């Protein structure tokens, strides 16, 4: 079995008006199926990219993967364990959560502005009880900062003292701090400029090689995943409409929707 498996993953949002309004107006319930029976699997140490336009359900899948949202139906399985098994004890759940971390799109919104960088990065270490003792925690934070290309002295600074790209490095260090096996990246470079984007993408790739990390990489930009996706899944209105290797997808897209995405992506190639 693959390392990460999404099985019939589904998420509904209830967009209905309040019951009392519905009773008075006789209007039916309105349910939006944001993610509709999505299946995919990811091999250990590889990158699976989910590509789609806004509202296609990408972020909803990301949130379900890291436990921020519950699926309405279906489940996610990691390393043979059902993440959504209601029978899981609290400590078993926690143990699984440690193994999947997330890097968010906005390095501005996802870092608490009032915390020092060192505390932000140490938070998962403390929450999961990974390392005891302030000194040892501090050493680990220094090591993580250096791994993502920052200085250990940066631990004392606040997020606003860093540029967008550096903040995204901090987010990555934080995600790494619980020693996860899977990282969900939701548009991690969309807010960054190309020159900085390249730095962050290269860093993610180097870390993947070093730690055999498995990535679920979410993006609206096909070019961004061209260097790192082993497989690309195309999401349209909550449904996975096509799945291929980048080579296959770029040269022989099967679905009209995929062709449209490829054709409308602005390209720097003059042809």
């Amino acid at each position: 079995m693959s390392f990460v498996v999404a099985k019939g993953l589904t998420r509904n949002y209830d967009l209905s008006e309040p019951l009392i309004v519905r009773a008075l107006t006789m209007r039916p319930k309105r349910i939006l199926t944001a993610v509709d029976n999505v299946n995919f699997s990811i091999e250990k140490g590889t990158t699976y990219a989910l590509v789609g336009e806004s509202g296609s359900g990408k972020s909803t899948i990301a949130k379900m993967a890291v436990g921020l949202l519950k699926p309405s139906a279906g489940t996610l399985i990691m390393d043979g364990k059902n993440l959504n098994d209601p029978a899981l004890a609290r400590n078993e759940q926690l143990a699984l959560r440690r193994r999947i971390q997330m890097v968010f799109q906005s390095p501005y919104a996802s870092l608490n502005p009032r915390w020092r960088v060192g505390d932000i990065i140490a938070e998962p270490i403390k929450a999961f009880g990974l390392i005891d003792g302030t000194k040892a925690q501090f050493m680990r934070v220094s090591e993580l900062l250096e791994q993502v290309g920052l200085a250990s002295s940066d631990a004392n600074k606040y997020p606003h003292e860093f540029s967008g790209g550096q903040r995204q490095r901090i987010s990555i260090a934080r995600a790494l701090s619980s020693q996860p096996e899977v990282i969900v990246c939701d548009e991690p470079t969309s807010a960054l400029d190309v020159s900085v984007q390249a730095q962050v993408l290269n860093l993610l790739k180097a870390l993947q090689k070093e730690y055999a990390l498995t990535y679920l990489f979410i993006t609206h930009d096909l070019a961004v995943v061209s260097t790192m996706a082993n497989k690309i899944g195309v999401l349209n209105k909550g449904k996975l409409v096509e799945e291929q290797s980048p080579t296959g997808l770029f040269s022989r897209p099967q679905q009209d929707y995929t062709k449209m995405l490829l054709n409308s992506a602005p390209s720097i190639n003059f042809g």
Partner: protein
Amino acid sequence: MSENLLQIKNISVTFKTRHGVLKAIDDLSLNVKKGEILGLVGESGAGKSMTGAAVLGLIDPPGRLSSGQIWYKGQRIDQAPETIRGHEISMIFQDPLVSLNPLRRIGDQLVETILTHMPITKAEAVDRARKGLEEVGIDPERINAYPHTFSGGMRQRVVIALALAPEPALIIADEPTTALDVSVQAQILDLLKQLCRERGTSIILVTHDMGVIAETTDRVGVLYAGRLAEIGETRDVLTNPKHPYTKGLVASTPRIDASSFDKTLYQISGSMPKLDAMPNGCAFHPRCEFALDKCRIDRPSIIADRAACWLLDGEETLL
């Protein structure tokens, strides 16, 4: 196409702060020709939007245009904001809701804009508003709809109709498609290109997306740390960049290409300097792999009408 509609001559924009005077734009010059789309590209904070704001006289205090001149149709406009700007120059922002009042029907907003710019009757203005909507691909029957009933892309079309209503000769579009999906983005960019061709309108298109630059603009100016690093015909600049920063930008742009897999992207190390820590000489020198001793001391101006880089010095004839 060779006639200059707009000339920006050696402008600087400064901010007085507690830490001294900061220069957000530093001695920048460029021209916009009649009927062309000029792209401005660079990372956030490079001064793209500030350049647009300077042209429109919209720099918020404590910032101010501290030196230089801006000429429009042979008239100096940096001293006399109200007369020309607004009537002849329109602005399109990334967020359509900056330009649209959510509480008013789109038709009313269009008619009002038209009436402030043209001596015509209300009925004629309504007629024009309907034509304007049609032109940007919106059903004129929706003239009485409110902004929130449109999708993001449709709303941006309404904004374009509003921007076009006074029949401006120049439109400054600041990241007009950044918030939109690629399919919608492609439609909006096509629309802008078509308007440019049909009406001879000039556009300054501000974006950080090299793909958008490649597909939409005739010429491109690359900004770095408030200075113009390179300028030229778009194809020329992107296929044969002269400034090391432009080279880096082009090389680090990921491409939809089956052979990209597992390759490391080219990266420019470091980051753009902050305004209060500008290096001497060439602003790019701390990140430049070609930097010469001279680069650390003397600031290069644009050489051979192309790039602000000492590597081009003495090579004017080669270009």
